[in-house]
């Protein structure tokens, strides 16, 4: 487990992601990229799907990336990473590489993961390539102007799920992508948040130690898309976790474990109130919408608690074995 100072020293020694990019003021994505990079010991190859991160960090001829970086298209980041990994293995077999363990990391948004890149991700997970897939989940297509995605939560207002005389925000429930990924029987999957940087850093260390695919779904706050003040990014992320909207957990070989229990769980309404995309829920007419969202959140938390309890013995056995 690395301390913040250790992460800072690593970044000072080998900066892998630099300023000068055009991501919005207060964006949550750079903290994700840096925490992931600073938690990986050896050399890194990064692959990006189309998205905020890709367009904002590579305005020709500038690049914010201090590592080999590839971008091909929106839908195929995981397929590109598969190719990189296969090439790496082939070269290693022929003795053309130094033998140093190279980590291949994909950074893609929720649009490039939940929706457009899902088939490529599914294929890469099933084939078992050794790579880390990081989804920075800001819950809509922010780069193109805040259109709803498969990750947008129920009742959230976006430009394609607007609030008006008929519309009441997104009518559908977001898909549970982490569960879809877990269904591929990969060695490691987890959910994390920038507000809990150490939890995230530990999960990156565990993920890249695997011999197969690993997946991190990381909540990324978005000031223009969520409608909160730029300065409140870290607080909105923390409240998402403390209100149990975004539970922090990991799934090791199919076994679930909650990694953070809010000491004083906040009411969901406190998190909702910070964001304009939910501002229509304040009216009395929308009380049902809010309680429907709350029911979804409570059911999700109870399911994770149940699964954590089921896996308790498995984790204890594993701890005893390795001791």
């Amino acid at each position: 487990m690395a301390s913040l100072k250790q992460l800072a020293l690593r970044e000072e020694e080998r900066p892998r992601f630099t300023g000068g990019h055009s991501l919005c003021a207060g964006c949550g994505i750079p903290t994700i990229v840096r925490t992931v990079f600073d938690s990986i010991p050896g050399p890194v190859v990064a692959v990006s799907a189309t998205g905020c991160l890709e367009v904002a960090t590579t305005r020709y001829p500038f690049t914010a990336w201090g590592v080999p970086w590839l971008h091909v298209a929106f839908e195929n980041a995981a397929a590109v990473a598969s190719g990189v990994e296969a090439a790496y293995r082939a070269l290693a077999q022929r003795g053309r590489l130094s033998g140093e363990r190279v980590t291949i990391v994909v950074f893609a948004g929720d649009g490039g993961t939940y929706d457009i890149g899902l088939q490529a991700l599914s294929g890469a997970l099933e084939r078992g390539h050794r790579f880390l897939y990081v989804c920075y989940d800001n819950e809509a297509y922010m780069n193109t102007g805040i259109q709803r995605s498969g990750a947008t939560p129920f009742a959230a207002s976006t430009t394609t799920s607007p609030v008006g005389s008929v519309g009441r925000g997104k009518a559908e429930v977001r898909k549970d992508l982490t569960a879809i990924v877990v269904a591929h029987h990969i060695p490691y999957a987890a959910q994390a948040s920038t507000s809990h940087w150490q939890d995230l850093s530990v999960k990156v260390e565990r993920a890249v130690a695997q011999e197969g695919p690993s997946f991190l779904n990381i909540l990324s706050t978005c000031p223009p898309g969520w409608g909160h003040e730029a300065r409140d990014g870290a607080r909105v992320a923390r409240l998402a976790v403390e209100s149990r909207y975004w539970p922090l957990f990991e799934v090791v070989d199919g076994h679930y474990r909650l990694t953070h229990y809010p000491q004083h769980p906040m009411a969901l309404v406190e998190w909702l109130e910070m964001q304009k995309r939910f501002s229509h829920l304040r009216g009395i007419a929308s009380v049902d919408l809010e309680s429907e969202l709350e029911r979804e959140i409570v059911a999700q938390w109870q399911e994770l608690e149940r699964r954590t309890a089921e896996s308790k013995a498995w984790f204890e056995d594993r701890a005893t074995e390795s001791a």
Partner: protein
Amino acid sequence: MASERQDAFMRPGGVVLPGDVARPRTGGWRTGVKPAVQLEKCVDCLLCWIHCPDMAVQHKQGVFQGFDYDLCKGCEVCAEVCPTGAIQMVAEATQLDPRGAILPEGEGRDG
């Protein structure tokens, strides 16, 4: 050499490496306020460093060294996450020392 490199990557198939091109100055995004620090309150916890979206918080060996105002977009996240209240936003024209500390009245000004 930056100029030789520039010729190389401007050709078809050329490769851009970090440092080949000057970093865009995103400090111009600020709208009237910039972060400043009261150094006696800073405990070098580096929470501002990890949460800064623009890598504008500088440190040396883990010790806070001020802000890079060429990069800082003025989002105020650093002031918000600072657990000791050492960082506060001040007017753009405020005179600061190289580590981002507010100068006592009358210092650092011409005449």
